[in-house]
Each structure stands twice: as structure tokens, then as C-alpha cells.
């Protein structure tokens, strides 16, 4: 592969020009599916983030709800109301608005749990790889055991334990944190294993030895010398895990052990709407489901693309 080294004598181009000129951006432009996924992700994320400002209604403002508006179908079906694009649920809440607010909660839990899992996994992986010995053995055996069970089971279990520890009222208050903790704890293993592997390689390199010789503190050595060199693959895992975390959260909420109906996430909305499926009011549950799938699928596609784009081995064959 003939690569031209960057010419150091040239003046450094601006950041935007460098991004536009990069391999990663090139592979992005060459893949229409990725561009579509990015667009969908952008729409979903901004719809969720800006919900309080752009949602057509505020579904949690009880004063604005009217039971006469309850169970209206989407606008393209008879007996609908043009004010409610995707119809209303049994309490007269606008389905589109509840989805936007729900996606906000789903994304919050998704991002927070991924960050939690990443920090935990990377820290344990660094320690495991660098210290080695008994510490390494203990951490990796725990990881092995956890990896032999599906993540959803681990998340359910942690959720169940925390639920049993709190009383019911208290639990509704802390549901968000309980979810972040249980989803995060069920996905740390992959980060730990990846980081441990690359730390084992990095720790014998000369720059680490040099740093050790001049007496850099081990913690500083780990986090400011080794960490930047092992973080690349971690970010790819994080992107793919974001979709997984969103789905896991939705599953827990759907099972009734996640977000309470007073602060619904997409999973809670699907769970609540599920009761009305039998009476033919499909839009209450199908639209949140659709939003969930679109979000998870497009984030997944972005993660796949990122993995391929950042992997130079795959680039050669293209």
C-alpha cells in the first residue's frame, strides 16, 4: 500500500479541511447506507434532545390533556384529529410527543450506561493488564464468568437486587440510576478484555519503560501514557454498545422493571401501549417500537461503519 507521509513543511490545514480530507470521511461519503444511518441518527437524537422545545404537545402537562382526544388514530386514518400526527393514547396524550420525550430518557440511560461501562471496563482492563498476577487473574475470571451469561440476564439480576433493596416508592425515584447501573454493569467485560489485551502489548514498549525510569507515578503512567494508545478500539465498541444499551434498557422497561410509567422511556411506552394492542389501537405501541428500532438500527450501522473505516486491514482489500 503506497501511503504518502504528511508533509511537515506545509502549513497545517484547518481542522475542517483535515476532516474532509481524511480516509474516514472518504469511506463515509462512499457509503450511502452509512449516510442514511447518520441522517436518521441525527433526526432521532435532535428530536429527543430538543423535545421540550419542538414537540407539538407536552404530554406531561396534565392541564393540556383532554380525555375527549383519547385514542385518536394517526392522521391518515378516519376519525383522526389533525393536531395529533401519530394519534393519541388512552389518556389523550400525543403519541409523537411521548415518543420524543421517551427517546430522551432512552438516550440518557443509553449514553450514561455506556460511559459508566466504559470507565469501569477501561480502568479494570488497564489495571489487569499492567499489574498482572493475582489481580489480573481475579478480574479476568470474573469477566469470564459474566461473559458466559447473556447481558440481559445480568442486567435483570442487578436490577432485581437493587429493586429488592429499595422500597417501591423509593425505587420509582431512583429507577433511572438503577437502570444505568444495571445496564452499565452488564456490559463492562468487553472493554476490560480489549483494553487488557492492548495494555499487555503497550506496557513493554520503550515509551512506557522510559516513563517508568524517570519515575512517573503508576496511575499517571496508566491514564496519561498508556490510555491514549489503547483507547481507539474502545470507542468503536462504545458506539456498537450504545445500540445494545438502548435495547437492553427498552427490554427492562418493557418487562416492567425499568422506567416507571410516570417517567416513560420508549420501552415503557411500548409496555403501556401493549395493553391496547388487543383492542386494535396499534399506534400506541407500534410507533414507539418503530422509533426504537430506527434508532438502534442506525446507531448499529454507524458503529459497523466506524469499525470498518478505522480498521486499516480491511481498507486494503477495498
Amino acid at each position, binding site marked *: 500500500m503506497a501511503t504518502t507521509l504528511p508533509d511537515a513543511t506545509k502549513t497545517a490545514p484547518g481542522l475542517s479541511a483535515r476532516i474532509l480530507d481524511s480516509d474516514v470521511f472518504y469511506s463515509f461519503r462512499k457509503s450511502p447506507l452509512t449516510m442514511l444511518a447518520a441522517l436518521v441518527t441525527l433526526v432521532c437524537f435532535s428530536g429527543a434532545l430538543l423535545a421540550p422545545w419542538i414537540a407539538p404537545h407536552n404530554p406531561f402537562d396534565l392541564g393540556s390533556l383532554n380525555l375527549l382526544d383519547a385514542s385518536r388514530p394517526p392522521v391518515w386514518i378516519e376519525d383522526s384529529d389533525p393536531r395529533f400526527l401519530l394519534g393519541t393514547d388512552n389518556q389523550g396524550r400525543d403519541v409523537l410527543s411521548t415518543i420524543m420525550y421517551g427517546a430522551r430518557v432512552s438516550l440518557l440511560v443509553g449514553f450514561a450506561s455506556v460511559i459508566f461501562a466504559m470507565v469501569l471496563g477501561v480502568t479494570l482492563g488497564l489495571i489487569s493488564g499492567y499489574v498482572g498476577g493475582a489481580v489480573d487473574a481475579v478480574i479476568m475470571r470474573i469477566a469470564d464468568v459474566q461473559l*458466559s451469561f*447473556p447481558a*440481559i*440476564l445480568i442486567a435483570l439480576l442487578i436490577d*432485581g437486587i437493587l429493586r*429488592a433493596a429499595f422500597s417501591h416508592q423509593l425505587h420509582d425515584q431512583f429507577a433511572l440510576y438503577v437502570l444505568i447501573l444495571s445496564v452499565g454493569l452488564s456490559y463492562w467485560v468487553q472493554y476490560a478484555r480489549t483494553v487488557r489485551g492492548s495494555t499487555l502489548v503497550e506496557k513493554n514498549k520503550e515509551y512506557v519503560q522510559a516513563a517508568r525510569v524517570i519515575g512517573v507515578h503508576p496511575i499517571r503512567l496508566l491514564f496519561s501514557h498508556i490510555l491514549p494508545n489503547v483507547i481507539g478500539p474502545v470507542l468503536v465498541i462504545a458506539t456498537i454498545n450504545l445500540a445494545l444499551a438502548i435495547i437492553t434498557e427498552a*427490554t427492562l422497561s*418493557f418487562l416492567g422493571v425499568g422506567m416507571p410509567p410516570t417517567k416513560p422511556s420508549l420501552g415503557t411506552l411500548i409496555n403501556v401501549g401493549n395493553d391496547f*394492542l388487543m383492542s386494535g389501537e396499534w399506534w400506541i405501541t407500534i410507533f414507539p417500537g418503530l422509533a*426504537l428500532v430506527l434508532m438502534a438500527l442506525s446507531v448499529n450501522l454507524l458503529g459497523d461503519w466506524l469499525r470498518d473505516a478505522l480498521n486499516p486491514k480491511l481498507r486494503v482489500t477495498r
Partner: protein
Amino acid sequence: MIAFIIRRLLQSVLVMLAVAFVAFALFTYVGDPIAIMLGQEFTEQDRARISAELGLDQPFFVQFARFVGNAVQGDFGLSYRLARPVEELLLERLPATLELSLVAAFFALLVGLPLGVYTGLNRDSWLSRVFLTVSLIGVSLPTFLIGILLIYVFSVEVNWFPSFGRGETVQLGWWSTGFLTVSGLRSLILPSITLGLFQLTLIMRLVRAEMLEVLRTDYIKFARARGLSNRAVHFGHALKNTLVPVITITGLQLGAIIAFAIITETVFQWPGMGYLFIQSVYFADVPVMAAYLCLVAFFFVAINLIVDLLYYAVDPRLRVDRAISGGH
């Protein structure tokens, strides 16, 4: 070989002990069993008496040893919610979960294998592309949404299959089976499709990848050069060699199916162990949670152990690898 078996057995026992420890910690630190048993009003003497009766005044490790001893004999105490022995509750619901899981696994294997072979042999046909795209979407759909969609289409819109429950069951000793009645079989269809779909796509992709790999090898070229028919090459030579990993993965996935049955059972209100577990999580019914945890962990460990041993017996290359790497 014997050293390997002993090492794996020891590992399994250790994992089970670790899980039992988590389950025991649940009992000890979550909730207060004495307060639950005595209700609102009790004196310190009552508390001390019950505490001695239950052995809660004993040292931690003595209590843990007794918990493990009881658990091995299948005694997990009374359910807080239903006030019945936990092992009885689980045993009642075990057949429902096992039947559902088995049907789902067979469905995944019987449909996934031919699809994988087809997409492996005809990698450029449009039908293969359709299968692969659909499988990608299938992987992205969460299990509970697939269930909801199936219920909406096949129970609400066209009313072909029931949307919840097991239908009529027949009692064979303590085992209740849905295989022997029409309504029982009809009730099995939607849940087992929901449960098996993910595994189906997994098996299909695995078989496809393995087929593509094997078809490139020299012995396949040689078989073609000998003038064997396509059929003999594809099924007699190629497929056979893809089966070892497929069997392994299917075996390992059986554990995942039993775990994912929690979701499917909740969607279809299937009276199995998973549904019981979710309800016990909801009501903080610690004994049921602990027992379910131990039981599922046991399934997982047993399946892992069996698959490992089978693999070791079936694939001689593994033995050589282990010898070279110093039995790591």
C-alpha cells in the same frame, strides 16, 4: 484428557459456588426475613428466638455452607409472595419453559441450517441478499418487539394463533405437556418463533460463513476434480465439516434461549420459569430470584461443560493446540 475433565469440573464447581454466593448474599443483605415473618409487632425476644431458629445468629460461613447444602438438595425456602416452597413453584413451571426452549431451538436449527447452506452456495443470488438483509433487520429488532408484532399480525388481525398462555396441557406425572393437544401446539407457534428468531439468524450466518470457508479448501477442489456430483461435494464433504462449530454454537445458545425465554414468556404470558422470575423481581421475592438464578446458572454451566467435553472429543486439533500451548 482426564486432567482436562477434572480441571473443567473444578471450574464449573467454582462458578456454581460463586453464583450460590451471590444468591446467598441476596438472602442475607436484601430485606429482613424476620420482619417479614413476624409482621409489624414483635419484641426483642421474639427476634432473638426466630433468629436462632433460622440459624441467623451463626457465623457467615456456617450460614453459607448450610445454604449451599440446602440448595444442593433443592431446598430454597418459601416464596415471600406465594408462601409456597420455591422448588415446587419452579418444578411446576419447568416443563413450560423447557418445551418452549426446545421447540425454539429446533425451529432455529431446522430453518437456519438450510438457509445458511443456500446463502453459502448461492452467495450472489438476489434471494440470498434478501435473506441476509432480513436477518440483519431481525437481529436489530428486540425480542419483545418481534413478539408484539407477531401477536398483532397473527392474533389481532387474522386471529390464527392465540396471543397468550399455553392452551390446554396434558399432565404426564409431574410433567405438563402442551405437545399432545391441538390448542397446546397452536399456542407454541408464535412464542417459539419469537424466541428462536435471533438464534435462527445466528445459525444461518454461521453456516454461511463456514460454508464459504470450507468451499475454498483444497479437499473440496480435489473432490470436484474427482468428478463428484455437486450434491456429493456440497452435502457429503462441505456441509459435514461445517457442522462441528454449528453444533457447538447451537448447544451454547440453548442456555441463551432459556435466559431469553424470560422476555418471550412475559410477552406471551407463558406460564414458565421466566415469567415467574420477572414477577418475583417485581415483587422483590428474594427466594424465587435466588433459586432461579442458581437453576439457570446450573443449566449454563452444565451446557458449557458438555459442549466443551464434546468439542474436545470431536475435534482432535484442539488437543494438539492445548498440548503446544502448555495446557493453558
